[in-house]
């Protein structure tokens, strides 16, 4: 199985915009791409994970300016239901070309909504740019609270940045404290749906991006679709990014492949295990629905 999906090119990149890289998690790829697309009129607005009233709890917002994009930059390790706004963006927000960012599962939902636009009248043709982010697993907000407040022993309000890398979950606070916990301890908090997900690098996005495979402060970028390619080429020509070939950076594409294989192999086992999960009245295995097969 091809664990990285179809892509036209893969490259390591970093935004040249200092305002963005100050706020962003790694290379600032998503924020810069949306800012470029907004400026060029490729999109009218983007659905991004904006700030909410609670610390580190993302809330989907429709960003139509760079300032709004910057407020939403950076990773929050809990899900932001961005699809919730996809229809409203074309309605009371009055957008004709919508950009959306999301995890691999959200990209699957976007494509499904385009393929079978049931309840999505006049939405499917208005999705202009779908950006995906790498995702190993996701946490509920309560789980994130437990990890930060209990395991890492920091207050959510004081946290400046959260990061996952090198087998550790790291929390940086305003006052300079750094608290770490081993990544394997957070597995029990993972949302159940993540255990059957077979997509690590957002195979269905126009462009997908994540830190894995690139040096600190850089991101790995997969350019996947024709549309994504056009936007990426335009952004490069406009000087939005500095880039390095993937085979010249450490740790390189091999790590992405390794992690993707790990995730998919582990989750494939869960998918298979579900085939015999539970028993029917006559004693035969009942099996849970396999999301990757048509019933």
């Amino acid at each position, binding site marked *: 199985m091809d664990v990285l999906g179809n892509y036209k090119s893969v490259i390591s990149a970093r935004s040249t915009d200092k305002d963005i890289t100050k706020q962003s998690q790694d290379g600032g790829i998503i924020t810069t791409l949306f800012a470029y697309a907004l400026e060029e009129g490729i999109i*009218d607005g983007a659905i991004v994970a904006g700030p909410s009233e609670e610390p580190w709890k993302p809330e989907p917002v429709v960003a139509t300016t760079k300032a709004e994009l910057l407020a939403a930059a950076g990773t929050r390790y809990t899900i932001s239901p961005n699809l919730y706004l996809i229809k409203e963006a074309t309605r009371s927000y009055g957008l004709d070309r919508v950009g959306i960012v999301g995890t691999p599962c959200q990209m699957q939902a976007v494509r499904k909504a385009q393929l079978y636009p049931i309840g999505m009248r006049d939405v499917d043709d208005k999705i202009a740019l779908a950006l995906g982010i790498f995702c190993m697993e996701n946490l509920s907000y309560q789980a994130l609270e437990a990890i930060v407040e209990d395991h890492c022993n920091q207050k959510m309000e004081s946290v400046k940045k959260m990061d996952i890398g090198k087998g550790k979950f790291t929390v940086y606070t305003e006052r300079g404290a750094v608290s770490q916990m081993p990544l394997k301890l957070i597995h029990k908090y993972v949302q159940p749906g993540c255990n059957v997900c077979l997509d690590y690098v957002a195979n269905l996005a126009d462009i997908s991006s994540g830190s894995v495979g690139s040096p600190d402060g850089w991101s790995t970028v997969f350019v996947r679709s024709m549309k994504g390619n056009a936007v990426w080429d335009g952004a490069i020509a406009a000087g939005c990014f500095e880039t390095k070939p993937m085979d010249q950076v450490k740790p390189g594409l091999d790590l992405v492949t390794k992690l993707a294989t790990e995730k998919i192999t582990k989750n494939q086992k869960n998918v298979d295990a579900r085939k015999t999960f539970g028993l029917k009245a006559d004693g035969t295995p009942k099996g849970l629905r396999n999301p990757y097969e048509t019933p």
Partner: protein
Amino acid sequence: MSKVVEISPTTRHEGHSKLVLKVNDDGIIERGDWLSITPVRGVEKLAIGKTMEQVPKIASRVCGICPIAHTLAGIEAMEASIGCEIPEDAKLLRYILQCANRMHSHAIHNILSLPDMYIPGTDVKINPFTKEEPVRSVALRIQRLREIGQTIGEIVGGEAIHPSNPRVGGMYKNITPRAKAKIYDLAKESRVLAQEQMEFMIAVFRNYQNRDWSEVGGVEVPITKDLGYHNQGYMATAPVYGSSSLDETPMWFPDRFTEVRPWDWYMGEVEISEADPNYPIGGTTPVGNKAWPQMEACTGVPLYDGQPVEVGPRARLVQFKNYDEKGAMGLQIARQMEFPETAYGIIDALDALDPSGSVLADEIPQGDGSFGWAANEAPRGTDVHMAKVKDGRVEYFGMLVPTTWNFPTCSRALTGAPWRLAEVIMRAYDPCVSCATHMLVIDEDKRLVAQKLIQ
């Protein structure tokens, strides 16, 4: 000796209806019965016990042509019952929805009525689907008007069909300044198109009025000068929007409304004694078949001051703009005259709209079971919804929809016309039959009908 003709089903309108016509030897209608044969929806019974939030949404599902009218009338009936005043900006959003719906609906009706008409100055009937000019550009203009109406409905209402944004107490969301600008652009475009479309359609209908004959199923039928004339009254509650029992001066009066059963109104059982197999779309019902209008009609017959009344574009123009042209073409022309107002109405409402204003009432009472009604001027006439809400639950719900009013009125307008033109008269009313079919009120008469139906 009169003969009986049955045209079943009638075509090029929404829903399922038929015409049973008693005609004289010259083919002139002596008595016409136009009746709905769409199966009963039962929305009024489904509504009982549901929350007041749900019922307007269910009610709008009665049909997909004017769901906006049903949603708004349903919601405002609930608001009238509980006594809830909504913010000004919510009213403006609803007004925009209303205009957008009317623009779309009138445009689609143009497509339905054009095939009866002739290209002015020729004996060529209009086929709206031909690729040839001048018809092609008209068809494109109609579709663009529909697209604009539906898009505005989608932005303001959340959905073009069955709007999700209106709610009891106002609206769920206001629109953004960006959306407001987009609607402005669309409305300005439609303003020009609607004017052109109105002028074209009026020219076509005037041409039909001046013709001596029209070809129907290979027969040249003389067009009578009083085609579709009737002497019934008109009922309208507002030029554009509507009225409700919360208004200072309500424009509709429940006391003046009575209803009779179809059993007491329509013809008894008749045998079809004349038929034309060449009549468009499969011919009329063959000789020897039976028709029984009083049994088959699926609507009640609503009366206002004891008489059937006409509702719709002409009724609005007669009540509020001193319009006085009678007949089927008079009604068609009245409908076209409403076209430009839809675009101007949207622009005016947008001028007044504050996109950052609140669109939800601060307090939404849960209702004490008092009676409330709301009338919405749907594209095809006054749509009255009545409700009683107690503690947030609907105790009683009734829909008096436009075409229910028009069924008996149009039946009278058929008298004196050649039977082959009966459908032309009927189509002038822009019938929307499926919502007109509604649950009968249980009373002595109903039991009588029910017993007869069982026998």
